[in-house]
């Protein structure tokens, strides 16, 4: 045992080293998020969190569930591939949440260090409550020109007009049915 006789300081040092390593492992356990490394060098739970975000455009299937008349008219017309929300805007509206959440003491201390995220907004859908949220009833004198105003840059086969000379400022719906605008295909009013 003569070799270990004067090695006590080395054991003490090794003990400290092991202790530091254990502290490192414990700290790492708390600092590294649970899902880090689940799919790669990133937080796996982030995928689900990003996917949770509420949508604003509900999709034309949602509109067509109730508005069967408009869907039926659109089906055979020139606007068959134009989705409802392309003209009428997003079906779901976001309203600011008026209620401020109540914070406990711990959360208030944390809020002093890390500024809290803004309150979660409310999302109201026309599909859930038709009276509260109304999609836009567009002004055809403005809306139609966004696509159909003549320009040399647009594809040649796309129907284009000079709005001023074509309709002298009258809204397009005076003559065309917006859901099926082709004059030859029964789109005339």
């Amino acid at each position: 045992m003569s070799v270990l006789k004067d090695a006590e300081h080395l054991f003490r040092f090794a003990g400290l080293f092991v202790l530091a390593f254990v502290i490192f492992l414990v700290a790492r356990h708390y600092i590294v998020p649970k899902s880090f490394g689940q799919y790669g060098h990133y937080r796996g739970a982030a995928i689900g969190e990003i996917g949770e975000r509420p949508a604003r455009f509900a999709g034309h299937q949602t509109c067509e569930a109730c508005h069967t008349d408009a869907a039926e008219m659109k089906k055979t017309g020139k606007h068959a591939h134009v989705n409802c929300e392309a003209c009428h805007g997003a079906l779901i509206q976001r309203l600011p949440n008026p209620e401020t959440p109540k914070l406990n003491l711990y959360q208030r201390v944390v809020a002093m260090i890390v500024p809290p995220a803004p309150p979660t907004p409310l999302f109201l859908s026309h599909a859930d409550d038709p009276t509260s949220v109304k999609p836009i009833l567009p002004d055809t004198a403005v809306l139609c020109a966004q696509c159909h105003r003549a320009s040399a840059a647009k594809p040649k086969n796309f129907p284009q007009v000079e709005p001023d000379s074509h309709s002298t400022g009258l809204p397009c719906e005076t003559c065309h049915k917006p859901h099926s605008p082709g004059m030859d295909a029964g789109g005339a009013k």
Partner: protein
Amino acid sequence: MKITRRQMLILLPAAAVAWESVLAGTPETSPNYKLSDHWWGMLIDIPKCIGCGNCVRACQTENDVPDGHFRTWVERYHRSDWLMANSGVISANPLIDPEVISPDGGKEGFPVATDTEGKYFFVPKMCNHCADSPCTQVCPVGATFVTPDGVVLVDQTYCLGCAYCVQACPYGCRYIHPQKKVADKCTLCYHRITKGLTTACCEACPTGARQLADLKNPNDPIHEFLKTHNVQVLKPQMATGAKVFYNELDGSVR
């Protein structure tokens, strides 16, 4: 059981940490969505794009994109060197650079083109959701990544805002969010496509110039389209594995 002041001081922070993780809970995921069943991309049909800017506006509405920043934008190219005739192109001078404009990202459309000479076309741009994306490789903290279903996302709770990825993207598709101070980019409407909806830009496109594509779905029309059309990606020489496919892309597009 008697707890001393010393024990109390040790226990309290530990309990606080434990309670935080209980409160945090687990995020709600779409129940029928399997990451391994999808490989997302997009098809952009240049001859169909009319430059109306509906996609840019829809993206801003859907994703609260701050003014002056874009997750998707539309560029108008004008190749004045193209001499067109009824029979087609007579001559083209590749040494003349095309004129490219994108006023406010094309959000409110484009000015009427007065010069009828040459060739015009619109190029909608967005994140290419590269399979081997340079932007994810440079992130020092693992805050941006390619998901198992092929979408490049940013974990904004983890991002430091160092903007290294903004520089790394060869397509200029990222920006630092002016309020959040973290990297922001197109998520391919991940919150929509995982619920069976299409992206906001595809939903709003009036001509079908944009089509969401699931390359792992054998019934997706993208497979036939890729075989039967002249389809390219942007900057193929960079080998980024870009998954936004452009039909009839002009060689002058960068």
